[in-house]
């Protein structure tokens, strides 16, 4: 894992001291809320439905046990004993007091964490593949590149007041586990003639105008990456709209001028930027890469795992993935218990995950954009022990990628922007499909729920997506089919009129019935939908 040097630490410590003073002046009435709001947002502090909410950055979703323990401590000390892991691989606390916030940020800084650039019109936390460094299909570990981008984008003076917020994802596999093309900039590291470079996609995103990012740079060399991304940002910063916040994201610019014209402008700007010498020498990327060196795997760890316990075998089949190192596995910890709140973990659960990571996963954890946690490097011989420890902490639900593994935004239960509650719908659907045999029979089915058009619950990318809207003061839920955030990326389409809270659960069940009736061998729900189209689903749902 990357470790702060004295510059990183002094920057973060300095920001905490600065914010402490700003809070003090706000509480003393020396600055107004209008003056203070942009300052608190720069430090990740929102005013939400019930209280202040703090969003803490988890760079590319990577944590060590010390940091996870600290997140647990913070949940106990400053919040109400839990935290919410988000679709941006961050964590949010829902009940923070303004007067406590500087101390909280000090605690975070003590473990090399912060909440900087988790809000505002700047470059947000860089996200990545939760299996980075462990996946057999990656061409390289994407985290050093994500870290390079993190350092470049942190406090970048030119990009602190962009037309709108800006999200970047970096992956290094053909299989996209990070919804890469639904980001403002998506980077896929790839190999060409033995050289690692980047495919750069620009102008994707969800929200009220979902778009899939077109490819702008087919192969950007490592030594050119920062200059190229800088050029992408500069064109956006110059021409992105600032007169209408709903049209201010880069996707609108790329769409309006076209990918070819945007690419032409980027290349023109790149030719200029490259001369400025902002790219670090490759030695710097190599230096950063050393922080992400593979752990010392045991050479003789490969064993045949005893599958005689059926519950354990089920968990192995559903939540444990192949590791590139023989004898090791990637463990997915579901934060989606049946009837629970997607993405929530109690402080005690965080401590358990931290301890298990320390003992059995080379001290590493990852947060996924699907609001789960990953132990990236678990020896196969330890899998049963890990499973038992997780089960004791109610963290062993074997439902990864099944219909109950629902992405859900906080919705109207917490969010001041939401129009409808998301979590209760997720709970009702998960409960309806609680039977594991039924879930497994349905197979991979990614269901995602947003409580408003801002789409924090990624409903556009759901095989089944649900969007909560406000219909004259009453919650109503629209259904979309056919979305995907993976390598077969697609935006889901609304299939018809919306439903009330119970009606949407019935509609989802009818859709799964149609799938079971029409599926062909090996087809997922998404495949069947794409093959047969919406008509049989609409007929079943709307009769």
């Amino acid at each position, binding site marked *: 894992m990357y470790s702060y040097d004295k510059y990183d630490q002094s920057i973060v410590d300095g920001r905490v001291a600065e914010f402490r003073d700003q809070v003090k002046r706000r*509480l003393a009435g020396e600055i107004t809320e209008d003056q203070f709001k942009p300052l608190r947002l720069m430090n990740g502090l929102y005013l939400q439905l019930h209280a202040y909410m703090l969003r803490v950055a988890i760079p590319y979703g990577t944590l060590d046990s010390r940091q996870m323990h600290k997140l647990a401590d913070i949940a106990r000390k400053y919040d109400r004993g839990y935290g919410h892991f988000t679709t941006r691989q961050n964590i949010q606390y829902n009940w923070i007091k303004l007067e406590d916030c500087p101390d909280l940020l000090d605690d975070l800084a003590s473990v090399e964490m912060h909440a900087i650039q988790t809000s505002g019109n700047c470059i947000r936390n860089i996200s990545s593949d939760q299996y980075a460094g462990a996946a057999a299909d990656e061409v390289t570990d994407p985290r050093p590149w994500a870290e390079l981008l993190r350092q470049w984008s942190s406090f970048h003076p030119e990009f602190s007041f962009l037309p709108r917020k800006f999200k970047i994802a970096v992956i290094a596999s053909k299989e996209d586990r990070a919804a890469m093309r639904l980001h403002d900039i998506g980077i896929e590291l790839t190999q060409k003639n033995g050289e690692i470079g980047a495919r750069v996609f620009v102008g994707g995103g969800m929200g009220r105008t979902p778009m899939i990012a077109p490819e702008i740079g087919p192969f950007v060399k490592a030594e050119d990456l920062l200059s190229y991304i800088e050029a992408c940002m500069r064109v956006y910063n110059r021409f992105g709209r600032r007169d209408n916040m709903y049209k201010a994201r880069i996707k609108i610019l790329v769409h309006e001028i076209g990918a070819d014209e945007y690419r032409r402008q980027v290349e023109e700007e790149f030719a200029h930027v490259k001369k400025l010498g902002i790219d670090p020498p490759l030695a710097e990327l190599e230096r950063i890469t050393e922080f992400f060196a593979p752990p010392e795997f045991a050479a003789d760890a490969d064993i045949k795992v005893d599958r005689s316990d059926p519950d354990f075998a089920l968990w192995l089949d559903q939540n444990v993935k192949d590791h590139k190192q023989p004898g090791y596995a990637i463990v997915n910890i579901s934060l989606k218990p049946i009837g629970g709140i997607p993405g929530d973990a109690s402080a005690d659960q965080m401590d358990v995950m931290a301890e298990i990571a320390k003992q059995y996963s080379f001290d590493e954890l990852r947060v996924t954009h699907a609001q789960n946690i990953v132990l990236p490097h678990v020896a196969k011989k330890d899998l049963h022990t890990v499973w038992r420890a997780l089960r004791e902490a109610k963290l062993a639900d074997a439902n990864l990628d099944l219909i109950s593994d629902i992405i859900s935004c906080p919705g109207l239960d917490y969010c001041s922007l939401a129009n409808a509650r998301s979590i209760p719908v997720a709970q009702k659907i998960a409960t309806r499909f609680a039977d594991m045999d039924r879930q497994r029979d349905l197979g991979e089915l990614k269901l995602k729920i947003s409580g408003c058009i801002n789409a924090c619950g990624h409903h556009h990318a759901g095989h089944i997506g649900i969007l909560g809207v406000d219909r004259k003061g009453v919650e109503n839920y629209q259904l979309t089919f056919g979305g995907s955030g993976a390598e077969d990326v697609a935006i889901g389409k609304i299939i018809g009129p919306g439903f009330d809270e119970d009606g949407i659960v019935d509609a989802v069940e009818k859709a799964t019935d149609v799938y079971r009736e029409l599926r062909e061998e090996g087809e997922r729900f998404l495949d069947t939908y794409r093959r047969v189209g919406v008509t049989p689903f609409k007929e079943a749902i709307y009769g």
Partner: protein
Amino acid sequence: MKLLTGNDLKSGAVTWWTGSDWSIHVEHAADVGEHGESILQAEEGARRVNAPYIIDAVDTAEGPRPAHIKERVRALGPTVRPDLTLKPADPDAGDWVI
């Protein structure tokens, strides 16, 4: 009826104008009628509340009930965590929201 609501500056807690002070309990809220804007400006100026605004509500036997579900969720707490609401011991409290 009209209610004046906002958040406590220090804690961020949802608060309601009672006619003379602020309370976290919506049942203590007072009808501000046509005076909402002037109270809002005075209270915001006095720094006793953060981001205040006026909402519609209905007067009921149990006290004021905000007209919109969002304000009712604000008033009670998250429907998915009854233990964190203002009425954790009342199993029927959620019905008031929905």
